[in-house]
């Protein structure tokens, strides 16, 4: 998704530059031709063309220069003004387009986000903004524990950025994304998605990047936990099982039984 967006951005920039150059060259050639017809001197024609093309600061200069150099009739003046005006419109348009493009491509918030993540140490990385990820984020925020969320859904990331959470957009099974989230400087990583295979892939990636990291992962059953433990020893939780134990304890206490821990 990110790559597609970046490609799209590059495409827009390329198209704008290409359009601008084409228009500039066409205008340049047409004006050179016109000036050559008037002056019968290719150097004069080239000089006036270039002056016309780049005189965006003082609009009257070109006209004055032309008046000083040669005699011309109304139609010639008209054509020069049109060319001059058009050139300026194109130049100003391009400058504006470049600025808009620059601001949209920089994405100041995302840059700040990355800078803040780089500063973090011993933070917690939450992989996947699932229900569990959301609960963890709320708790970490409440306890003022620094954390970074990795998720591949741009909409979720945008929403989290609006909440001033530190985020990384991308797939947490990729080394580059984990590094961006500061996997080298962290002590804990939590895999919170409901997909075991996806958590497992993340686990393998992390294992190769940081040997000392402590892994906590969600799992759907005990068989999965066994597989995950084969890769890396960590804490593995089955939320539904934790829920069942909690209900069991509550019912037992209601029936005047002590319940178990």
């Amino acid at each position, binding site marked *: 998704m990110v790559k597609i967006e970046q490609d799209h951005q590059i495409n827009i920039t390329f198209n704008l530059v290409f359009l601008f150059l084409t228009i500039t060259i066409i205008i340049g050639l047409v004006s050179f031709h016109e000036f050559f017809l008037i002056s019968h001197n290719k150097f004069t024609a080239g000089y006036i063309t270039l002056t016309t093309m780049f005189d965006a600061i003082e609009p009257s200069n070109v006209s004055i220069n032309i008046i000083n150099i040669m005699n011309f009739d109304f139609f010639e003046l008209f054509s020069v003004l049109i060319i001059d005006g058009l050139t300026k419109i194109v130049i100003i348009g391009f400058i504006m387009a470049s600025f808009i493009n620059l601001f949209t491509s920089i994405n100041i918030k995302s840059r700040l986000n990355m800078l803040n993540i780089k500063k973090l140490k011993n933070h917690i990385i939450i992989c996947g903004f699932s229900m569990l990820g959301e609960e963890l984020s709320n708790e970490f925020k409440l306890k003022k524990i620094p954390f970074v969320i990795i998720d591949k859904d741009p909409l979720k990331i945008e929403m989290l950025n609006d909440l001033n959470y530190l985020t990384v957009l991308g797939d947490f099974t990729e080394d580059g994304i984990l590094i961006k989230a500061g996997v080298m400087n962290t002590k804990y990583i939590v895999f919170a998605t409901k997909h075991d295979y996806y958590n497992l892939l993340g686990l393998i990636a992390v294992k190769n990047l940081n040997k000392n990291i402590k892994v906590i992962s969600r799992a759907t059953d005990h068989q999965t936990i066994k597989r995950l433990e084969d890769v890396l020893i960590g804490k593995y*939780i089955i939320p539904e*099982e934790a829920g069942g134990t909690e209900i069991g304890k509550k*019912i037992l206490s209601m029936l005047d039984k002590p319940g178990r821990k």
Partner: protein
Amino acid sequence: MKTKELELKDHVIVCGYGIVGEKIVDSLKEYNIDFIVIEFDENKAEKLKKYGYNYINGDATKSKNLKDANIKNAKAIAVVMDDEAKNLFAILTARDLNKNIFIATRTNDVILRDKFVEAGANYVIMPQKIASKEIIEEILQDNVS
């Protein structure tokens, strides 16, 4: 007949034998508390039969199945099926059949939690919340030690 003809009293009804239901059954079994499981899935019902548990192979949203589980004399019911809508329906039916029964359920949605309470549930847990607390405890304990 899949249903065991038993005259249960002060027992617990467990609706749904998924991961949550299984864990509840483990707790009840450990303390020798009478229970009956209502499970829709035939394979799971077979499993229950194999274990020798009291069970009904049917839909817990149907009052007939709840009546068969002797809900009138039950102390508590755990409504823990995979389907939130079914859970809500089962809670309403259970409350309708027994005004004093303790109803426990689970959800993953904060909004639904309130709905379940409105429908008559006494205790609603959110597994993700419990898991997140467990994770945080683990991290905090590790940092303290």
